[in-house]
């Protein structure tokens, strides 16, 4: 009995101390997990950078089940965490269920979309993935010797088709005769974490003549990059800078600065501006990675051409089609 009492006592104390953690930010990773070397890990890196620079602390959780989505949002909101940052489009429905109950808490959905009119305390952060993919598509076409480049997507959703479409547009801009092969890993969330299938798709694309492959597939991309390295062709990473995974064999990485989005949201804290924002080339929200691991692969000519295209897109002289606008791609059939 006394044992039980002491449990209850310390439970109460714990409840109090949990309530005292005021206005720290919280971060919720999607089912892919914190260390996917890609999307979620970028969010983690942004949060770590914020914690290191400001000395602040934050709480994070890796989701295990669907029912936990709303639960994690509510528990963080109840305990005064603010803002609550989430990664992945699957969080937008749970956020719209919860946001109305906690009007003083700010919610951030990265890659998701929540109507700002209906929920004024939600910030939706989107990225111009088509623009970044366009640039790496150009690089792929310039590096290709066979005249065939390829794309491996994760789950077949409009977002990933946007990557593929931007990539194909960039490749065709360099060489209008180039062949672009695009494959998707699957139609379920399992497609984000299937490196074996990613590897098989890459093999198949190589046998069709591809010598540069772009993986936009979360954890599945690890298998794509590995096979590309094993078979001696070039690959392109995604989201985080993945050039280091196979130095000298990863042409570049299409950066989607989820880390910057998380860092900025944590820095703004409770004063975070809500609404919808799209991070583009101009904001350095998307881009391509250049470091010591791929400097020998990226020629001066390639760099000049890509940087020029970047300027043109920012200036509005080059229009890159966004698949999501009309659910179609002018240069690629799915």
């Amino acid at each position: 009995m006394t044992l039980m009492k002491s449990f209850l006592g310390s439970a109460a104390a714990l409840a109090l101390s949990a309530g005292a953690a005021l206005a720290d930010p919280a971060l919720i990773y999607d089912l892919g997990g914190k260390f996917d070397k890609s999307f979620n890990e970028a969010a983690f890196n942004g949060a770590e950078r914020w914690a290191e620079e400001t000395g602040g602390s934050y709480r994070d959780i890796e989701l295990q089940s669907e029912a936990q989505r709303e639960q994690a949002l509510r528990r963080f909101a109840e305990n005064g965490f603010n803002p609550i940052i989430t990664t992945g489009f699957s969080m937008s429905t749970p956020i719209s269920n919860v946001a109305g109950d906690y009007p003083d808490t700010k919610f951030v959905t990265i890659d998701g979309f929540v109507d700002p009119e209906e929920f004024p305390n939600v910030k939706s952060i989107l990225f111009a993935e088509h623009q970044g993919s366009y640039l790496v598509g150009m690089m792929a076409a310039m590096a290709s010797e066979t005249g065939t480049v390829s794309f491996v997507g994760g789950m077949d959703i409009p977002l990933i088709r946007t990557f593929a479409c931007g990539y194909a547009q960039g490749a065709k801009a360099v060489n209008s005769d180039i062949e672009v092969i695009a494959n998707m890993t699957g139609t379920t969330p399992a497609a984000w974490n299937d490196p074996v299938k990613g590897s098989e798709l890459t093999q198949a694309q190589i046998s069709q003549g591809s010598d540069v492959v772009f993986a936009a597939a979360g954890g599945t991309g690890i298998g794509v990059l590995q096979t590309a390295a094993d078979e001696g062709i070039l690959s392109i990473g995604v989201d985080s800078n993945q050039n280091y995974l196979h130095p000298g064999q990863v042409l570049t990485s299409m950066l989607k600065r989820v880390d910057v989005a998380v860092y900025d949201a944590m820095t703004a804290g409770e004063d975070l501006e809500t609404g919808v924002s799209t991070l583009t080339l101009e904001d350095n929200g998307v881009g391509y990675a250049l470091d010591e691991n791929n400097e020998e692969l990226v020629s001066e000519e390639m760099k000049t051409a890509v940087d020029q295209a970047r300027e043109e897109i920012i200036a509005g002289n080059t229009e890159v089609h966004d698949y999501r606008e009309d659910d179609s791609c002018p240069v690629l059939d799915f």
Partner: protein
Amino acid sequence: MDKMPAWADAVLVPLISLLLAAILSALVILAIGENPIEAFNLMVEGALMRSAGWGYTLYYATNFIFTGLAVSVAFHAKLFNIGGEGQATIGGLGVALICLYIPWPHWSLALIGAALGAAAFGALWALIPAYLQAKRGSHIVITTIMFNFIAAALLNYVLVNLLKPAGQMDPASPIFPAATHLPTFQDMFATDAMPLFRGSPGNVTFFLAILACFAVWLLIWRTRLGYEIRALGHSESAARYAGISPVRTIVIAMLISGGLAGLMATNTAMGEAERLVMNATEGAGFIGIAVALMGRNHPIGVFLAAILFGFLYQGGAELALWTNIPRELIVVIQALVILFTGALDNMVRTPLERVFVAMRKERA
């Protein structure tokens, strides 16, 4: 004469198993440098000390009651139905179709309709393995587990190609119409002065689960069909000698089992998500096996074991929220409980039986 009194069999064995699992879990938590007592406090506080925590605990428990009953009904006929996962998945499809395409005037009617649909779809999914077992002798363990994969693939196809609204990224059905939304505990018990169960998913299907417990008890111990099922489970040749058709009994037992597993979807799809998502069952079909084993295939035991597992799930979620214990290790802790209460049952039972026999000899 039994080796052990009934109370020891029903209470002592599970308690000792739990204690062993708790000790091992504590060692695991210690090994990664966290405080096991603090972790236990967090689990209790988060799952049992707040009404919203209870809302989650009972929500998970509702799932486990249905799948636990499903496993135990089949088990009484000596059939090991490990296809609860697939039957619940297909049950979810039944719920979704009925909620989306029939204009229900009120949730109570919708619940009856959806429950019938879920049970029918789940039962249908169990029918083929049942037939194969009864007529062809294909082992039910193999066929039901394979049907889990087929169910997942089928749901995947239906969600992505047929039910998903255009332009939506998530492979999920549209939200069910408002008239089919079930009242949660919050809607039922919360007042302005006492905001109980705030935001938690526990809902009216919990009472449906209790009803199912009673119905299963009635079926197994108070009806002719239940007698036939149990007779078949004890000895097929004796049952046949008594004029019981094994084929008929196997098929009916599996249909009931599949129907119970399918009913779980009323809780996940209609009660919680209010739409059909890809992975709504989340292993509850397999947890049902542990629940049935721990509950000795009796509805009361299943009910209690389901509450325990609901506590473990909700407590695990709290651990993930407030500690740095990685989610993989939380699964390890949950698995240890399953291992000890389900698989390693005899490890505790046999020595305990010896103790009781020795005690009795001394007294005699």
